[in-house]
């Protein structure tokens, strides 16, 4: 999904529009509590060093609320770099320390590839759908 980079022609607001255009590549974070005991966190957009802190905050928040079985749904993620991987590894570590778990839903080739290259497919349980993840 391409970001909108259309700027206002008004000189005073031109800079701000330009900046906002790229900021619109925001991270979507939706929590679904209907799959108890699992909490499903659906992530959408691009996860990089700019957006990853929001994912980290959300995971920390869920864990602090006592949600210790988390499924992170990456089907809406268009881009994921090592910063995003780091946040997911951090989340898994945090959950394991509470005897919980963090599993992933991912079928997108380009995202799966990042896990494969880094060997993280051996660390995470990766499922083809949320249904599979919550019935595992």
């Amino acid at each position, binding site marked *: 999904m391409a970001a909108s980079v259309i700027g206002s022609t008004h000189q005073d607001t031109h800079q701000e529009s330009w900046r906002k255009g790229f900021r619109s590549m925001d991270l979507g974070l939706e929590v679904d509590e209907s799959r108890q005991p699992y909490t499903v966190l659906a992530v959408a957009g691009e996860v990089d060093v700019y957006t990853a802190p929001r994912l980290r905050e959300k995971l920390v928040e869920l864990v602090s609320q006592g949600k210790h079985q988390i499924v992170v749904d990456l089907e809406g993620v268009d*881009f994921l770099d*090592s910063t995003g991987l780091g946040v997911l590894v951090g989340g898994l570590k945090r959950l394991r320390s509470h005897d919980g778990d963090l599993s992933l839903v991912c079928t997108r080739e380009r995202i799966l590839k990042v896990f494969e290259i880094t060997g993280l497919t051996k660390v995470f349980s990766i499922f083809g759908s949320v249904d599979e993840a919550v019935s595992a």
Partner: protein
Amino acid sequence: MQRNLVLELDIPSSAEYIAIVRLVVASVAGARRALADERVDDLKLAVSEACTNAIEANHSASPTSPTSPTSPVHVEVWESPDRLEVCIEDSGPGFDPDKVASPPPFTDPERLNFERGLGIPLIRTLVDNAAFVRKRNGTLVRMTVFGGPVDGDDTGTIYMDVSRLSDPPSLDSGG
């Protein structure tokens, strides 16, 4: 061998601009080179990793202070008949890429204590050649992907300076 500069771009050392570099480099690579989409995605990820490192390096060189603005990250894309090179340069203190600590193996429970350190291995894996050049004032990461040009005329060099936002370029032109 003929080598042409096709894109030059400066971004402020701020994480929000990495998405711009990804977008622009992927657009240039996809439009000008005969590369499979998958290779363009690989390059995009490598570029993102290199920019993340460059921004971090610049910040460690000049800690945030109103009197010492952080240097921009400089990006260049070069074309040759058989390859595309993306160069990302910072003004940081430099590092030895061979001495970056590798995370423990995944079978080691300690692995979960390493949330970082994947960027450079990823860059090395994703592009055909990655060179980390220590310069007097910073580090240059040169990432090469092999692949010929898409048929068509050369459209010249695109110069962008996002670090001076007073004159934002239009990304709409040229598709």
